[in-house]
């Protein structure tokens, strides 16, 4: 089991003057995986990353990298390398000087080091840049040089602190794919910090969602999206509709709930089982709701509403439906498969929403 895990974080907390930035986190990260720490600002993800790098020491708990305890090991002796948020490119050195910086103690001959630098430049798609001054690089180029500088040392783990934040959208999307491909080809474990949930879902094997210093859920992207275990995670990832409800009865693989504004809801019971009488939250993704202008046949998992405004997004539309007893409209996402947009100019029309049993996510009530 330990062979599989390259990083083991056990009960780690970090306090700054009475404030717990990281609160009792336990995590295992597997060899060769692309692992993301995702959460809003202040959730502790960067602090956790810095503890892996050795720039902060845990107030409590232990960190193991490749089964070795890190508590007495300073950053310069750890088998990890980091790509900093500001890139931290040394302005007084050229590109070669930057990339080769950490190779001084490797014992390799200068010619050998230069050859490796050229290899790295090929890999980051900046061939011939070796002699260029660091101050002449663009943002995207600096980011890649920072990457090469860390990877040339072939660390066991690469830590990345929101490296794509300063890039514009197109460049960012391109870099996301490149980083993912790079990680797969190099085979090194990546620990990636970001606040952008789309980014985390695109690139990662598994994601740890953090809030207020704690890890709420660790899953692969699909698991996080389809099976969030807390309201925070359900809300943070993508868009979600929430309804308060009370369980009427549960058993036989299905749970029946009285949900506010939705009426009778029948959901497929998954791992978390809620007993009769429990106060829960019923959650449904916008794309899992079917919108029709005539009443469907089923008696459960159906509700009538009134059409509100619609937002046209090109490939799909977000339709807002008002239900009785609820101020906030329900968001429904529909593909614009035909040439015209669904739902535009249909305001105030009566509509019906329906959904499948498997589409419901049950969350603990707060």
């Amino acid at each position, binding site marked *: 089991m330990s062979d599989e895990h390259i990083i083991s974080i056990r009960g780690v907390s970090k306090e700054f003057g009475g404030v717990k930035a990281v609160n009792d986190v336990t995590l295992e990260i597997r060899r060769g995986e692309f692992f993301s720490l995702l959460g809003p600002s202040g959730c502790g993800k960067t602090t956790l990353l810095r503890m892996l790098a050795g720039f902060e020491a845990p107030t409590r708990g232990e960190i193991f990298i490749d089964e070795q305890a890190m508590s007495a090991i300073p*950053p310069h002796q750890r088998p990890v390398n980091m790509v900093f948020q*500001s890139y*931290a490119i040394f302005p007084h050195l050229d590109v070669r000087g930057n990339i080769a910086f*950490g190779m*001084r103690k490797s014992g390799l001959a200068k010619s050998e080091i230069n050859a490796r630098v050229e290899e790295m430049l090929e890999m980051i798609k900046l061939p011939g840049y070796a002699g260029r001054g660091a101050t002449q690089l663009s943002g995207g180029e600096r980011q890649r040089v920072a990457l090469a*500088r*860390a990877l040339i*040392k072939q660390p066991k783990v690469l830590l990345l602190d929101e490296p794509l934040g300063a890039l514009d959208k197109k460049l960012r999307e391109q870099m996301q794919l490149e980083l993912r491909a790079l990680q797969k080809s190099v085979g090194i474990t990546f620990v990636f910090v970001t606040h952008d949930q789309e980014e985390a879902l695109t690139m990662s094997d598994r994601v740890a969602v953090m809030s207020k210093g704690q890890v709420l859920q660790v899953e692969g992207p699909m698991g996080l999206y389809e099976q969030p275990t807390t309201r925070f995670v359900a809300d943070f990832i993508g868009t979600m509709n929430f309804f308060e409800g009370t369980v009427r009865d549960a058993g036989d693989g299905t749970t029946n709930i009285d949900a506010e504004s939705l009426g009778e809801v029948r959901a497929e019971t998954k791992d978390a089982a809620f007993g009769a009488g429990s106060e829960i939250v019923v959650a449904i993704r916008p794309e899992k709701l079917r919108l029709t202008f005539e009443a469907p046949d089923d008696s459960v998992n159906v509700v009538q509403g009134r059409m509100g405004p619609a937002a046209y997004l090109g490939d799909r539309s977000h339709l807002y439906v008002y239900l009785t007893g609820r101020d906030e409209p329900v968001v429904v996402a529909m593909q614009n498969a035909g040439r015209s947009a669904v739902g535009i100019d249909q305001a105030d029309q009566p509509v019906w929403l329906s959904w499948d049993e498997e589409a419901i996510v049950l969350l603990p009530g707060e």
Partner: protein
Amino acid sequence: MSASWTQKRDRFGGLGVYTVIYLAFIYGPVLVLPVFSFNDSIYVAFPLKGFTLQWYEEMINNPRMLDALMNSLKVGGTVAVLSTILGTLAAKAVTRYRMPGRGPVVGFIMLPLVIPEIIMGIALLVMASTGGIPLSLLTIGVGHMLLCVPFSMVVMISRLEGFDKSLEEAGLDLGENPWCVFWRVTFPLALPGLIASLMLTFTISFDEFILAFFLAGTDVTLPVFIWSQLRFPQKLPGVLALGATILTVTFIMITFAEWFRQRGDQLRKASYREQ
């Protein structure tokens, strides 16, 4: 054409004129020294009598003056190096680490800047006397360091403040131990600031009078020597020549130090991430 001219004039305006007069006020009396150092008369008065270099010759051929000059250079050089080291260490500690109680400690180190020099001078004199330490260039040096360390610290703090902390972390992360990181990353980038600090502290020590006056033994520094000459009217023009020379050299040094500091700023700004 006329529009931009009036724009410029308005911008310069009354305040600009005032500032130029202010500058003239600052430089005016100081320029007396060079002007009258070439004057062929022992009286510093108008009208000017004629051009001469004799005062400069007299100045160079004065062995006591040359001794005092050497002493000032020795003390200044040592004080510059030592106070820059101490000031830099302190500046690094203050800008890099979070420390409780740091405010009072920094305030304490800066205290010499707001205590009248004469009080510091006599305090050190008293300590030397009760401690049985003879007065010498060493005691002068100690006094000067008290004054120069805070200056060095102020210069280095403003150099290091904007310093991207992650540059040093990157150095550590890439496998260099803290000492190597200092030499390979911090030092090259701080060098312009270090040079500015060295020049500044040297100049402060070189020109300092009061502490040197109280703490000097048999060997005196240049300002103390000048002071002893002020009583003799015939030595006056010689003092003017000396003064003019010192003024010019210091002027050049400080301008150079500023230029160096400028370069440091440019390098620092370049290490920031572009948006």
